[in-house]
C-alpha cells in the first residue's frame, strides 16, 4: 500500500534508510521511451518498491531565455513555439499577451475570437497526443497500446489539418503577432471545423466509455500516484493535474483573459488525485473545449485582425523598462511570462524574460509521488503528469 505523499521526505538521506535493506539503484532515462523526451530519474529500489526518486532535468536545455534577450520581440515568437512543442499556439499566445499588456495595445475582437478558437482546438489536440502516448506507456492494458496511439493520432491529424489550412504550417505556426493575428480564417475553415469537432466529440464519448469501464485500465490507474491537493498547489502545480486533486481553479474562469469572461467555462474536478482522476479530468476538458468552439465558431465578428500598424522592421516593437507577469491557462496549467522591458536593441528586446512553465512544476512532484510504488506504476504516473521536456528545460 503506497504511503501518503505528505509523509514522504523528498530529500531523504539514503544512508539513513534501513541499513539491512538490499537497495538497488535503477536509472530510468534519460532516453527511456516513457519519459516523453529526455528526462532522467534515479530510483532507489528496496525489492520492487521505490524508496527514493531523484529527477534530473536539463537534457533539453537550449537557453531560450538567454536567446530572448538577444532577439527582438518580433523574432522570439517562432522561437518560443518550440518550448511546449505539443501546443505551440499557447506559447505564442503567452508571449504576445505579455507584450500587449506592457504596451496597452487593444487587440481587435476578431483576433481574440480567433485566438480562443485556436487555443481550444490546440487543447484538444494536446490532450489527444497525451492520451495516445499514455496508452503506449501502459502497454498491454489497452489492447497492445499502439492501437490507442493510432486512434488518437487519427483525430489529432484532423485538427492539425485545420491549422494548416489557416497558417500553412502543421506545427510551428507563428500565427500570433503583437497586436493581433497574422492569418485570417475563411468560411471554409468554419465549415470544416464544425464537421471535425462533431466527429471528435463522438470519438471522445467512446474513449470515456473505454476508460471508465475497462477493468485492466482501472487496475493500473486507480489509487496509483495519489497527489494531495495541498501539496500540489504548494508545488505550483495547476491545470488538470491540480483539478484531479480537487483544486477548483482555472484561469479561464477565475482570472479571465481575452473573451473568456463572456463565456461560461465549466471546470471539472475530481477528488481522488490518482492517475484515473487525471485521465477523466482531461477527457472532460476535451469535451468542454469542443463545446466552447461550437459556441463561438458561428459568432466570430467581422473586422480587422491586427490592432497596430504593421511594421516591416524586426525592431518596430519597443518596450520600456517596466515589469509585468501575464499568464494563460495552457493544457498543462498556468503558462506565464515574466517580462522585464528595456533590453538590448534599444528596447526592442527583453531585459529578462522568464517563462513560467507548468511542466517544470509538474515534474517537481516526482520525489513526493514515486516512493511507495513499483517501477511499472512509476511509468504510469510519469505518463499522467504529461510533462513536455521542451518546456521543462527550455
Amino acid at each position, binding site marked *: 500500500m503506497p504511503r501518503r505523499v505528505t509523509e514522504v521526505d*523528498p*530529500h531523504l538521506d539514503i544512508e539513513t534508510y534501513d541499513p539491512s535493506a538490499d537497495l538497488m539503484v535503477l536509472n530510468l532515462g534519460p532516453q527511456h521511451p516513457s519519459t516523453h523526451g529526455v528526462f532522467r530519474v534515479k530510483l532507489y529500489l528496496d525489492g520492487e518498491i521505490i524508496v527514493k526518486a531523484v529527477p534530473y532535468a*536539463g537534457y533539453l536545455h537550449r537557453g531560450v531565455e538567454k536567446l530572448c534577450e538577444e532577439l527582438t520581440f518580433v523574432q522570439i515568437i517562432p522561437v518560443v513555439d518550440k518550448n511546449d512543442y505539443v501546443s505551440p499556439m499557447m506559447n505564442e499566445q503567452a508571449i504576445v499577451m505579455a507584450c500587449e499588456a506592457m504596451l496597452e495595445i487593444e487587440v481587435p475582437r476578431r483576433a481574440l475570437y480567433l485566438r480562443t478558437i485556436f487555443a481550444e482546438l490546440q487543447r484538444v489536440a494536446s490532450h489527444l497526443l497525451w492520451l495516445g502516448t499514455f496508452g503506449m506507456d501502459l502497454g498491454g492494458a489497452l489492447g497492445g497500446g499502439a492501437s490507442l496511439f493510432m486512434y488518437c493520432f487519427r483525430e489529432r491529424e484532423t485538427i492539425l489539418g485545420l491549422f494548416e489550412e489557416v497558417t500553412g504550417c502543421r506545427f510551428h505556426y507563428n500565427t500570433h503577432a503583437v497586436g493581433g493575428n497574422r492569418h485570417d480564417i475563411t468560411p471554409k475553415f468554419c465549415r470544416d471545423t464544425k464537421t471535425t469537432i462533431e466527429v471528435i466529440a463522438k470519438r471522445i464519448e467512446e474513449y470515456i466509455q473505454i476508460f471508465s469501464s475497462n477493468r485492466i485500465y482501472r487496475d493500473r490507474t486507480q489509487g496509483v500516484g495519489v497527489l494531495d491537493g495541498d501539496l500540489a498547489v*504548494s508545488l505550483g502545480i495547476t491545470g488538470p493535474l491540480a483539478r484531479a486533486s480537487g*483544486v477548483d481553479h482555472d484561469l479561464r474562469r477565475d482570472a479571465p483573459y481575452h473573451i473568456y469572461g463572456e463565456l461560461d467555462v465549466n471546470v471539472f474536478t475530481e477528488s481522488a488525485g490518482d492517475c484515473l482522476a487525471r485521465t477523466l479530468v482531461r477527457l472532460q476538458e476535451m469535451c468542454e473545449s469542443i463545446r466552447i468552439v461550437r459556441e463561438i465558431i458561428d459568432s466570430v465578428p467581422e473586422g480587422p485582425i491586427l490592432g497596430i500598424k504593421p511594421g516591416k522592421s524586426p525592431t518596430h516593437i519597443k518596450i520600456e523598462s517596466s515589469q509585468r507577469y501575464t499568464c494563460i491557462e495552457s493544457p498543462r496549467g498556468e503558462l*506565464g511570462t*515574466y517580462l522585464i522591458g528595456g533590453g538590448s536593441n534599444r528596447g526592442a528586446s527583453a531585459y529578462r524574460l522568464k517563462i513560467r512553465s507548468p511542466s*517544470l512544476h509538474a515534474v517537481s512532484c516526482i520525489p513526493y509521488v514515486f516512493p511507495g510504488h513499483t517501477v511499472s506504476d512509476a511509468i504510469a504516473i510519469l505518463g499522467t503528469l504529461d510533462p513536455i521536456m521542451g518546456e521543462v528545460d527550455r
Partner: protein
Amino acid sequence: MTGDEAQRRFVALLQERFGVDEIPAANYPLVDARHHFELARVLKEEFGYRIYAFVVASHYPAAPDAKNENAEVDAEHYEVATGVRCIGAPAHLASWRVRVELDQALPTLFPLFAGADWQEREQYDLVGVRFDGHPDLRRLMMPEDWEGYPLRKDYAIGTACPPWR
C-alpha cells in the same frame, strides 16, 4: 471579492506592516529583503495565497552615470521577484520584488512552498543568486561542473562551452 479589491488589500498590507512607501504603477512593489520570508508567510497563512506561482531573478551590473562621473554608482546586484496566487476567483496574484546584493543570500521559501525547491534551484543555476537555508541548492539545468551563470549580463551569448562529458 473582485481582483481590484484584492489588489487594494495587498497594497494596504504592504504599506501598514512591511514599510513599503511607494507602489510603482508599471512595476511590482520593492520590499526589503528582511521582510521577504515574513511577507510570504503572512500571505500564505493569513490571506490564503496558497499557489506558488513563480520566482524570477535578474542580474543588474554596476551602472555608472554617463553624465556625472562623481555620482554614486549603483552597485552590481540581483533583483528577485516572487509571485503567489490564491485559489479560485479572482485568482489574485500577489507579487513583489526584493533587491539582493551580490554577496547576500535570500532566505528560501521552501518551508512555506514546496515548489520553491526547484524554482530557486533554477534561478541559482542560471542567474547565480543564492538562497539561504535551501535544502538542496544544486544546479538544475546546466551540467554540475558548469562554470558561470548563463543569464547574467556579463555572460556573453557566444561564450565557449566545454565539451559535454
